[in-house]
């Protein structure tokens, strides 16, 4: 099937993300990348768990002094909801509804921006109120590397989705760009998968002690 072919609601296939060879390769390659990302994040988690609360002097803040339930909860809700809105976007993509797909991707981006804003506030708060910085302790280095790496993924995901939305805004859906949107939404879900472990292992387990 020609990728640039003008599609209609009637000719749009059931799995538009896997119609061409390029799309199939992209799909497979992206999941391979996600497998690698799993290893990468797992090693950051392992480092964090090994270095948690390892501070050079006893008056420095530990995990249980730093983390607060309400902020972690709001951030979790924002990211979880953005995962659902990107599912909505892919639902409309499969129904060949370009406008609604763009709308839900836009909402996803806004929720992601809200998350990122809160994370910046959080880091700033720790540095200024608790003197908990990247260089203050092994605990600080491990914490900012793990959570910051996730935050960088969120920022990259936002740039990626926004770029796709702008680049294709006048093109409409085709078999050429449908896999691009699909893969970006997989990436966004993966960011949420990692966050589920971060809020459990870093924030909740940090508060429990």
């Amino acid at each position, binding site marked *: 099937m020609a990728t640039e072919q003008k599609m209609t609601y009637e000719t749009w296939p059931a799995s538009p993300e896997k119609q061409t060879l390029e799309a199939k390769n992209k799909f*497979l390659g992206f999941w391979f990348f996600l497998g690698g990302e799993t*290893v990468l*994040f797992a090693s950051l988690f*392992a480092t964090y768990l090994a270095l948690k609360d390892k501070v050079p002097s006893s008056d420095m803040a530990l995990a249980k002094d730093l983390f607060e339930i309400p902020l972690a909860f709001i951030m979790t809700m924002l990211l979880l909801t953005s*995962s659902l809105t990107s*599912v909505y976007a892919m639902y409309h993509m499969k129904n060949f509804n370009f406008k609604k797909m763009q709308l839900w991707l836009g909402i996803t981006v806004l929720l992601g921006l809200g998350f990122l804003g809160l994370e910046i506030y959080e880091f700033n708060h720790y540095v200024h109120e608790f003197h908990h910085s990247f260089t203050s302790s092994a605990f600080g280095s491990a914490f900012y590397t793990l959570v910051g790496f996730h935050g960088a993924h969120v920022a990259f995901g936002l740039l990626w989705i926004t770029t796709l939305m702008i680049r294709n805004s006048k093109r409409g859906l085709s078999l050429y760009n449908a896999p691009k949107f699909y893969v970006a939404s997989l990436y966004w*879900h993966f960011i949420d998968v990692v966050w589920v472990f971060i*809020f459990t292992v870093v924030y*909740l387990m940090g*508060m429990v002690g």
Partner: protein
Amino acid sequence: MANQQPNSGNPRVDIEYRRKKSAEEMRHQVITFALMIFLTIVAFVAAGYEGFSGWFVVPFILILALVQVVFQLYYFMHMSHKGHEAPAMFLYSGAFVGFITIIAFLTVIWW
């Protein structure tokens, strides 16, 4: 194609069928989302409640996290669909190596 819907020879009927199928899938995804919100709230409440000891809370919230991630992978990322054998192998291999890494760091290095 493996995941193409059955063809009745009448495109209108096929589209109706597909629309119904994807509306049904969307409903499942909304239910999944509600469950995920519920699991998240349970985890936060369990961690915030003073009466539980860490020996109960930590394994409990880890299990909740695992369940939630399975929901995310199989429903939101469509791993329950056909044609996801290779993705499952990639992801589980990654998770396996990651698990070994975490176990190694937690046991060999500090104790």
